[in-house]
């Protein structure tokens, strides 16, 4: 554990920590392009040069390990001049097409120029023209070679993280070009990450390009609902310019650093899997079946109708198919309402999917639900599997089915069985966010919020409980599932009065052993494992990771 001095401040860091990381712990930012803490060190951009006492020349912070007694200066005139010089070189062949560049606003050439450059251009030679501009190199990524600073982060990502080796830097000198290898496409399952780590506008996201300028975006921390890994993400949402991006409120998802879960990365399936949030099939109003038709209704009417039908039947005649896309808080309320409250004994949550989830040995898991583990810990299913519930329903044993989210009619379940179960059940209540075949068979439809529109928590497959936060309000009249359940319980005169998800989580932690000791404060922004044992030391929530890209 060497102790060193950086700009007059002492700091002790683990062995082998480099100067950039050591400075970061003191809140000192050493500018850099090619260095990325998740990749090997290249040391070629030369932006991170620092002065080290007794060293003959400037050293690169990324490749200089901290040693005992080292004295580092990051802000001397010599260092400032070196940064300026490197920026001048980097920009000497840069097209300066910021007005039409989608990276503008989150471009590290722009940011560092304003912080460390600010020189008058002296370049009067013709700039190098490169071959590919605005060229698609894969399903998700666009390449502009002229904007590339050749830091090689994307190449190292494909070599070291995905090990798929699609990208290379071709040619020599300033004719050098980043490109895919001949005959290859950048279409690995994690390709979108190269856009995140590209410090400039060379690699842009085909899904996000020109949808909205980044400075109109708001940022909310969340967790990807795409599989049971629970990669930490940021939701970048656009509420200021609703006319941009064809009304898309959620503009993009970005991975958020969590050393326990996803490090710096996320998969493409998760990254681009958010479209359902603003999709045209969102259910924006409660609906009641009147005759052959589902008609829009008010929440009051719909909940009254639901309560009436639930009251009219014996609890043993109710089947509930909950949903592992629901939060821990919501699943807890499902149990409280149907099992503890009504005495219902037929509650399942898992529905097999039609195709294999295709898990891998990195981040992607086969289970496409973020909260299967949470559902299990909370005590679901009660008694039966979904198949058993449908079997019973098709035999006419149920008068009411309450289905959360699932499209049973496009699932991996035996379809004739689903058909006969739906046909044989008097009342089908559907509670979910998007319309599909199963919704058309419902008698009562309760529109719920998506993960981006509510708060709560998911428990990933490893038992890490992580929080999600509302980025945009629920669309139309939709409500978070916990609020719908809360209102329904009130309609059933159960005396509930949950004020928010934190309130529910507190009760959950008191009642479900696995969650004991956990609270929103303990979860912080990096989550915490089930079975948490508080130490004597006061829990200090982890500092939020503020940088998106670097």
């Amino acid at each position, binding site marked *: 554990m060497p102790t060193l001095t950086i700009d007059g401040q002492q700091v002790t860091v683990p062995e082998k920590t480099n100067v950039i990381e050591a400075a970061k712990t003191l809140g000192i930012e050493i500018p850099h392009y090619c260095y990325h803490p998740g990749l090997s*060190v*290249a*040391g*070629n*951009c*030369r*932006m991170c*040069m620092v002065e080290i006492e007794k060293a003959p*020349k*400037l050293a690169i912070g990324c*490749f200089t390990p901290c040693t005992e007694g080292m004295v580092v200066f990051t802000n001397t005139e010599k260092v400032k001049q*070196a940064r300026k*010089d*490197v920026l*001048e*070189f*980097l920009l*000497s*062949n840069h097209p300066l097409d910021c007005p039409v560049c989608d990276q503008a606003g989150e471009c590290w050439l722009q940011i560092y120029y304003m912080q460390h450059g600010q020189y008058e251009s*002296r*370049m009067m*030679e*013709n700039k*190098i023209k490169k071959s590919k501009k605005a060229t698609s190199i894969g399903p998700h990524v666009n390449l502009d070679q002229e904007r590339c*600073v*050749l830091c090689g982060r994307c190449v190292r990502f494909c070599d070291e993280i995905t090990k798929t080796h699609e990208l*290379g*830097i071709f*040619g*020599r*000198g*300033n*004719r*050098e070009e980043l490109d895919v290898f001949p005959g290859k496409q950048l279409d690995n399952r994690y390709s979108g990450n190269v856009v995140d780590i590209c410090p400039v506008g060379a690699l842009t996201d085909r899904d996000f390009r020109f949808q909205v300028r980044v400075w109109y975006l708001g940022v909310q921390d969340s967790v990807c609902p795409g599989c049971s890994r629970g990669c930490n993400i940021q939701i970048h949402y656009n509420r200021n310019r609703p006319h941009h991006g064809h009304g898309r409120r959620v503009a993009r998802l970005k991975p958020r650093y969590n050393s326990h879960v996803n490090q710096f990365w996320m998969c493409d399936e998760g990254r681009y899997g958010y479209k359902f949030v603003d999709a045209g099939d969102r259910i924006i109003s409660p609906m009641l079946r009147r005759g052959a038709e589902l008609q829009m209704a008010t929440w009051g009417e719909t909940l009254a109708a639901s309560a009436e039908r639930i009251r009219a039947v014996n609890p043993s005649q109710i089947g509930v198919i909950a949903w592992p896309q629901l939060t821990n808080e919501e699943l807890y309320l499902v149990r409280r309402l149907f099992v503890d409250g009504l005495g219902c004994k037929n509650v399942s949550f898992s529905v097999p999917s039609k195709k294999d989830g295709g898990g891998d040995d990195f981040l992607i898991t086969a289970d496409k639900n973020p909260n299967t583990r949470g559902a299990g810990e909370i005590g679901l299913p009660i008694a039966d599997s979904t198949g058993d519930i449908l079997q019973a329903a098709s035999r006419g044993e149920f008068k009411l089915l309450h289905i959360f989210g699932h499209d049973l009619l496009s699932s991996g379940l035996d379809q004739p069985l689903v058909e006969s179960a739906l046909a044989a059940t008097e009342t089908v209540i559907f509670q979910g966010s998007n319309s599909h075949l199963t919704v058309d068979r419902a008698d009562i439809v309760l529109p719920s919020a998506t993960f981006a529109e509510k708060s709560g928590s998911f428990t990933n497959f490893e038992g890490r409980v992580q929080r999600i936060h509302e980025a945009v309000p629920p669309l139309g009249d939709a409500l978070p599932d916990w609020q719908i359940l809360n209102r329904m319980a009130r309609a059933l005169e159960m005396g509930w009065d949950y004020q928010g998800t934190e309130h529910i989580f507190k009760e959950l932690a008191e009642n479900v052993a696995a969650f004991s000791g956990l609270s929103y404060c303990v979860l912080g922004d990096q989550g915490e494992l089930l079975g948490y044992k508080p130490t004597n030391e006061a829990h200090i929530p982890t500092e939020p990771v503020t940088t998106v890209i670097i």
Partner: protein
Amino acid sequence: MPEKILTKHFDVPGFRELGVYRQHGGYAAVEKALGMEPAAIQDEIKRANLVGLGGAGFPAGVKWGFVPQNTPKPKYLVVNGDEGEPATFKDRYLLEYAPHQLIEGMIICSYVVGIHKAYVYVRGEYVKQINILRHAVEEAKAENLLGENILGSGFHLDVVVHQGAGAYICGEETGLIESLEGKKGWPRIKPPFFPAAIGLFQCPTVINNVETLSHVPHIVNNGAEWFASLGTEKNGGTRVFAVSGHVRKPGIYELPIGTPLREIIYEHAGGVRDDRPVKAVIPGGSSSPVLTADQLDTNMDFISLRNAGTMGGSGGVVVMDDTTCMVDICANISNFYAHESCGQCTPCREGTSWASKILNRILEGAGRMEDIDEAIRICRNMMGRTVCLLADGAAMPILSYLTKFRREFEYHVENSECDVKKSH
């Protein structure tokens, strides 16, 4: 005439064939070495003051000593025959005329360090030399000088001759190693400053120039004191100078390493054509800062040249007479480095070509007075800020022309023409 070592038998017909080579004492050093303690040979090489003749001038015996001895990994010898430095053509002759001399040096070096696999990386354009070397390797194998149990000693060594693909940067030792591994020849980040512990295939590696290793058998045969006595205090033996430019007899000249530049030009290379005065001399390949006519008494060993503000480099000597336009030479050299910068590090990638564009503009008569200082500034911003020394090797000579011959650049700017060419 001073004693020759490496090129002594270049006139002997068929010297490149194993039989003729042996008739002239070839492979006696290997026989002798295989009966010696490796440490004793290494000590001999150290005391001989044999230095790296590829350009760095680093003591070879010391370099061999950097290789860790107790390692479970295989160790490799890599011979640098990439010879890409403009004005350098000594290895070409050593490979063509005395391939067995190199192989002998490789066997001894491998025996000392405990190496069983050696690669010779030869410049891609040296097709003839590659074929000759490959033939020599086959001959040596056939006579049990390579392969298993060499001359019954129990020592074994395999040699692979690898043809480069035409990049200057692959002469930089870590760039060469990357290239040999099948990758793009991007030099590796330092430290480690030597590939001794982490080199080829991440294994301990000795890398030496063709000329350096070719000296080794002679040191084993004749002793360290003999070799050291031929050179200067710190640099032992001879060096093969490749002399070109405006001399009457361009070619290779093997001379004691500390021979004065004036002697090389006037006593060996036949003096300057038409008895014109010398204007400038590149002493050690295009990367070495240029010397002016008043520096001809500089001795050509690494230390004297360093003291003269330039470097021994690759031993490629280019003599320029008074009809030479220094702006032209400077622009020409800058073009080379702009073309050959590997593009890995920002300052070199952008700086070499930016400087080159400015210098060409001055040459073409479109320069501005401030361009001269601009080019100097760009060169200074490149130096010491890159993974390898190509940037320094590009900036140093350009700076030397811009500062030593600034008047000529100013004339080009002021008059849009060359006063040197005009007056000759």
